[in-house]
């Protein structure tokens, strides 16, 4: 094939990157947005308002739950957090096959039910980044392949550098091509560990569907059995069949919990199992801000005696490896600063992938005289895949605000808008000259992003005012992020315009020179 190892690796880097680059870009962009899944959801469900959480909500929710039904087997109270402003109570009633689940989103001041608009919110990005809207059609397999190729891209990319340090400290900004190569190199070095952890953990998350054979061979029910054997959980509640009234005061539990979990707002949710049985049990779940692992920390109490029950056994190394990688991938533990750091690492990886794709094309266009069909295809897909995706995401936010609230299957309509705008960008990229299409789509995106906070304010000024009043950083932060990314898009547009105009200016100069010569 190629004479030496290094050139082999460069070849592999080039072509594995080209084949799967657009897919990786989409996955990384939507995945990066999912770091702020809950914050984006909060912005997209403005009816939730901006209220602070407290433990005082608990007792009143209990009395609300007991008003609902006396057949319930399980009550759950989800307290609102800084990130996720949803205050939800839910209860389930046993049915023939599966328990029926009901839930209510509450206003944390008046305890009235809130009607929230039908939307997938930020969760759309989260599911899209690993199923690609193709759940049931192998979407998760495609995402897995992309993760593997990313790992290979990282490994082979390291060999592409001859001068690792020198590359890291150089950025040449005069020529488009050189800027791109240097950006690609710098971003590659910065995001090396991040990309490794993200891609590897992505593969570990879906172990059960990527390499299921060993588990299928050793256990009757395959991975399901294996999962039960390696993970630990609390024993099921044994009903005593002695009917009692459910307890009404959760404060003793909360006080005990405080001695174990001293941090502020430690409780994420409370589950009351078998509330009408004398053996009822109360589970208190901790906010996942402390541990890397994705295993929920929980304290279990006997409801009537308020006695602390035996904790869950710790899991063994095999399971913990996956738990920690899973936790690192989702980053639920991240505090705001760390979350932004993760976010910017994600953005840097997106830039890495996008610049790689553009470099492939430009390097070849410089050399060839006659274009191959492949060159045109890559050129157009770059436009639709990179700039088009940004516009499509922006249109998703617009759809959330503009589509009337009472329309049926509204959430699906939002997703359709996203896909439709993306498709329109693809067509648009084929009918316009390449650089024009780039700068025009970027310009639209910048304009749309910059106008969105204004549109939001015009539709309902109260949302923003309330967020300001309650210092709801999720809402304000989202608006600021929109303005900032709009600004970035605009400056890229301006820079690109400069790059387009420069060669033309040169042409004009040389024309004048030739004319002068002709005159002479």
């Amino acid at each position, binding site marked *: *094939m190629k004479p030496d190892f290094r050139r082999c690796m460069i070849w*592999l880097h080039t072509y594995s990157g080209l084949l799967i680059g657009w897919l990786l870009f989409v996955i990384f962009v939507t995945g990066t947005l999912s770091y702020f899944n809950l914050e984006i959801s909060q912005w997209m469900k403005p009816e939730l308002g901006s209220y602070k959480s407290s433990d005082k909500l608990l007792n009143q929710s209990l009395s609300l739950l007991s008003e609902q039904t006396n057949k319930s087997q399980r009550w759950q109270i989800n307290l609102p957090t800084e990130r996720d402003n949803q205050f939800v109570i839910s209860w389930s009633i046993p049915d023939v096959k599966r328990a029926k689940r009901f839930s209510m989103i509450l206003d944390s001041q008046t305890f009235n039910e809130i009607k929230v608009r039908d939307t997938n919110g930020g969760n759309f990005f989260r599911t899209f980044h690993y199923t690609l809207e193709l759940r049931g059609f192998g979407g998760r397999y495609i995402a897995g392949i992309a993760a*593997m190729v990313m790992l*290979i891209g990282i490994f082979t990319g390291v060999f592409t550098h001859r001068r690792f340090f020198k590359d890291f400290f150089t950025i040449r900004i005069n020529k488009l091509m050189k800027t791109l190569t240097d950006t690609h190199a710098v971003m590659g070095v910065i995001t090396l560990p991040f990309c490794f952890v993200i891609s590897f953990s992505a593969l570990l998350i879906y172990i059960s569907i990527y390499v299921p054979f*060993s588990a299928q*061979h*050793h256990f009757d029910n395959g991975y399901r059995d*294996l999962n039960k054997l390696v993970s630990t959980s609390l024993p099921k509640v044994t009903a005593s069949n002695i009917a009692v009234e459910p307890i009404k005061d959760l404060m003793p539990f909360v006080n005990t919990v405080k001695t174990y979990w001293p941090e502020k707002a430690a409780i994420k949710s409370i589950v009351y199992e078998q509330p009408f049985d004398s053996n009822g049990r109360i589970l208190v779940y901790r906010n996942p801000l402390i541990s890397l692992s994705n295993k929920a920390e929980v304290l279990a109490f006997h409801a009537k005696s308020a006695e602390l029950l035996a904790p869950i056994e710790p899991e063994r190394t095999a399971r913990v*490896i996956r738990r920690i990688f899973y936790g690192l991938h989702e980053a639920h533990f991240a505090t705001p600063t760390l979350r932004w750091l993760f976010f910017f690492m994600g953005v840097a990886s997106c830039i890495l992938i996008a610049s790689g794709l553009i470099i492939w094309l430009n390097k070849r266009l410089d050399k060839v005289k006659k274009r191959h069909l492949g060159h045109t295809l890559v050129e157009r897909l770059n436009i639709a895949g990179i700039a088009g995706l940004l516009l499509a995401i922006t249109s998703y936010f617009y759809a959330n605000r503009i589509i009337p609230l009472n329309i049926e299957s509204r959430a699906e309509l939002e997703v359709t808008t996203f896909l439709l705008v993306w498709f329109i960008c693809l067509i648009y990229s084929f009918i316009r000259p390449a650089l024009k299409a780039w700068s025009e789509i970027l310009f639209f995106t910048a304009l749309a992003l910059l106008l969105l906070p204004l549109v939001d304010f015009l539709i309902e000024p109260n949302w923003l005012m309330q967020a300001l009043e309650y210092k709801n950083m999720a809402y304000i932060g989202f608006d600021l992020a929109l303005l900032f990314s709009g600004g970035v898009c605009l400056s890229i547009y301006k820079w690109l315009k400069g790059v387009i105009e420069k060669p033309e200016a040169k042409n004009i100069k040389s024309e004048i020179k030739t004319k002068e010569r002709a005159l002479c």
Partner: protein
Amino acid sequence: MNYRLNITLRSLAAIFGSYGLAVASSFALVPIFMHVFGCFKADAVYLGTIFSYVFYFACVIFSFNRASVLLVWRDITLVCFIFYLMHYIGNIL
């Protein structure tokens, strides 16, 4: 050998050959984890599956890097056979 055929065969080795090898390794690692590291069976199966990714990755790099494509396929077959033997012996133990 024809360049295109060469690349095609290497890619096939990288995609499907490596996958086969990874699956074989997920079987072969089970007895190793059980008898060498003293894990429970469930843990051994779990770890074997996790580590099979390492073999997949290594095999992809290897398939584009070996001097001849025939050697790639020979080695993959050989390693798969060794993995099968390990699995077989593990079953007897």
